[in-house]
């Protein structure tokens, strides 16, 4: 069957135009599902109890299967509870609140859910950072370094300037974070635009440089009095306001992130500059022929990308931690790549993907403490999802589905050209 007939058949099956949304969502959803299945396999095959049970499989097959199921249920169950909270506890707490007016239990029961929402905030921004890079054909792996630098800059403004009202201090701190990240992203962008050096290696180098720089700052100039390598706590006027009393940490950063996502959408799709960036990403030679300045657009895209990642670090500091410690930005780099890929580099997709990631990560800490499954299984699932989304053919091959050819984004090119 030639390509056209296959496409027509597939379109007919999925309902033509209206099915386009279905098609766009199908691959990411299946990717996540398959990733979770693989994750379950990894959890089960490395669980000591299950391995022991399979050792005596033929004597007691029921036990082996039961143990397998238990391991998966415990792991993913605690993942769910860590992400959303225990539904039974929540309902009970609501009843309790209506009966006695005591807020405490209610707050505690929704704590996991609000923590997940708080965790989603930096993922949205960091994912947007990588997505903007992708839209210009640039692979920004430096999100982790830009995140860290942004956090340090905003923390510095946060703790060192005293006596400002919050409506000046807070935006200033956020701006400082964005500016720090912007500079950190602009350097590899500039090098790529002017010398052609590939941004993959340069952003990774900037990451390592930022780790060393952060270490020096946290042990030296920015160190709070005491033993630990942390910055002083930021002033109250620089903190992002929280919605609920302690210990809930859900704050306005979440709303800010959503607003920024909408802003990025508007910028990319409704402005000339955004169009230029996307054009350069889609076809640099064509864009150059049309008169667009490739150098300017590369630098602009990387600067915006860095600024977003820096803002992510800023919201994390100003909203959640209120100080910076070592290994602060650990993991956000690769997570944001997966989020951008999963969200197909579109701001709204990124928000959804970040949502998923926030819940997963939040739940994973609970999974580690309740079920003893190391956090890093999430990284494995993440890597697999990246592969599945980047190679839809693998998903198609596993599930034997036919899809109409959708436009594939060209993500990157070779080394410096």
């Amino acid at each position, binding site marked *: 069957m030639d390509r056209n007939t296959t496409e027509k058949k597939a379109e007919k099956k999925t309902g033509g135009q209206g099915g386009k949304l279905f098609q766009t969502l199908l691959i990411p959803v299946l990717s996540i599902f398959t990733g979770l299945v693989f994750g379950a396999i*990894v959890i089960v095959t*490395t669980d000591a109890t299950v391995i022991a049970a399979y050792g005596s499989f033929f004597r007691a097959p029921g036990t082996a299967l039961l143990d397998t199921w238990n391991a998966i249920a415990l792991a993913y169950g605690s993942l769910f509870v860590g992400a959303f909270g225990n539904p039974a506890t929540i309902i009970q707490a609501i009843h309790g609140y209506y009966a006695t007016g005591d807020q405490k239990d209610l707050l505690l029961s929704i704590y996991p859910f609000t923590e997940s929402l708080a965790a989603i905030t930096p993922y949205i921004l960091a994912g947007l950072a990588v997505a903007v890079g992708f839209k210009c054909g640039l*692979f920004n*792996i430096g999100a982790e370094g830009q995140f860290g630098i942004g956090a340090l800059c905003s923390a510095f403004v946060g703790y060192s300037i005293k006596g400002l009202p919050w409506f000046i201090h807070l935006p200033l701190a956020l701006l400082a974070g964005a500016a720090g990240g912007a500079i950190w992203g602009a350097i590899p962008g500039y*090098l790529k635009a002017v*010398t*052609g*050096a*590939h941004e*993959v*290696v*340069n952003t*990774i*180098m*900037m990451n*390592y*440089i930022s780790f*060393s*720089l952060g*270490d*020096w700052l946290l*042990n*030296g100039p920015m160190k709070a009095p005491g033993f630990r390598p942390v910055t002083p706590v930021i002033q109250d006027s620089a903190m992002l306001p929280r919605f609920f009393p302690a210990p809930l940490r859900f704050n306005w950063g979440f709303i800010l992130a959503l607003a920024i996502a909408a802003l990025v959408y508007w910028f990319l799709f409704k402005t000339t500059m955004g169009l230029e960036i996307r054009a350069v990403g889609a076809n640099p030679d064509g864009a150059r022929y049309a008169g667009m300045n490739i150098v300017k657009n590369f630098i602009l895209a990387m600067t915006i990308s860095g600024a977003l990642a820096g803002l992510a670090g800023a919201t994390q500091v100003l909203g959640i931690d209120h100080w910076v410690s070592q290994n602060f930005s650990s993991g956000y780099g*690769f997570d944001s*790549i*997966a989020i951008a*890929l999963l969200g197909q580099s579109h701001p709204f997709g990124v928000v959804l993907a970040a949502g998923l990631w926030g819940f997963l990560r939040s739940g994973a800490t609970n999974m580690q403490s309740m079920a003893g499954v*190391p*956090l*890093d*299984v*999430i*990284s*494995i699932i*993440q*890597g*697999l999802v*990246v*592969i599945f989304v*980047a*190679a839809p*053919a*693998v998903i198609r091959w596993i599930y034997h589905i036919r899809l109409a050819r959708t436009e594939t984004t*060209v*993500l*990157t*090119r*070779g*080394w*410096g050209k």
Partner: protein
Amino acid sequence: MATNSLPVKERKKYSRNRLVIGLVLIGTGLLILLLFGLHLQAGQVATYALTPRGDTNVIPIPDLTLPVQTSIYVLALISIFLGAWHLAREIRSSGALMGVVAFCFVAAFLLCATAGKSMDLVGVLNTSMVRATPIALAAMCGVISERSAVINIGLEGIMLSAAMGAVTAATITHNLYIGLVAAILTGAILGAIHAVLVIRFKVDQIVSGTAVNIIGAGATNFLSARFLETNVEKLNNSGVFPNITIPLLVKIPILGPMLFENNLIFYLTIFLVAILYVVLFYTPWGLRTRAVGEHPKAADTLGVNVFLTRYVNVIIGGMLAGIGGAYFTIGSIGRFDRLMTNGKGFIGLAAMIFGKWNPIGAYAASLIFGFADSLQVKMQILNIPIPSEFLQMAPYIVTMIILAGAVGRAHPPAADGAAYEKQ
């Protein structure tokens, strides 16, 4: 009669590039003078040990003593002189020129740092070569893979996985060679996964490489947390390849202790670099590989199996990276720590680019990075005023500087990065 004027293309324009390079060289010379030369007292000497202490295999050589201030002035003068010459009469090979001046700068820095103290120079050189080993192997993996036009940036993931595979296998079987084989196998498997994704499923090569990195890091962290950290004796305690001294060659002054007293992986690396060079440029297989990398369609027309060539190259590359991973554990400290590769895979990529996709060039570049790495450790011991964190940044900054200068003039294989569609 028409008046003669030079045709336009024969008129030699004073190129901006030459001006910039000349000025930079002179500037470097002045920098050497100001930064390093001026604030030293005259008469200070630096002592460089040319024989490793306590080494009985080697013929002892007297230490090298250099008057610091004079030497620094000399180096500064050389840089300024070369810069001026380049401005006046262009020196053809500007790459070599910059290399010489860079050497002067580093030497001056070293002299300034060791003024009044002594340093084991041969030891530093030896450490440079040893630390360059994983970088070189990663670079070799990159070279062989990219020569057939497949970008492989999954080196961190491959090296981490191979490192863990090596140490675990070696600990369980009490045999380091089996550990090495395990590392090679792990590298081959991960290389195969990358190859399948990129060749069969036409995934973007950089995305696939990143996924390999993510999974490699995640899986090794997971398994380390799940098994290795709780069972150190049984799973994470392999011992290390012993140093093998080559009897006669080690007696060569300076080069002897530097080159001929290292372990198996070190010798293997040098051997593999030479083999790769010969294979790539002097065998039919190498020719086919390079053809596939430059113009796959033409190679295909001539009957070369583009896909098979790429598969084999990427898998062999994976094996090389696997050996590189083995270095970290069974070639160095005998246990696995999380994320222990610390960016060496990416530095290997930079070495590959700097070496212009040539095995020997890439090895030379790795030596430079190894030197930066070992210098950084030595400087911390020497207690110089620069904070250790800044010294830690040095290899990475060097990478960026080199990439900025090198890439423009280094051309990757023409088809690098593009999936091949058979038509």
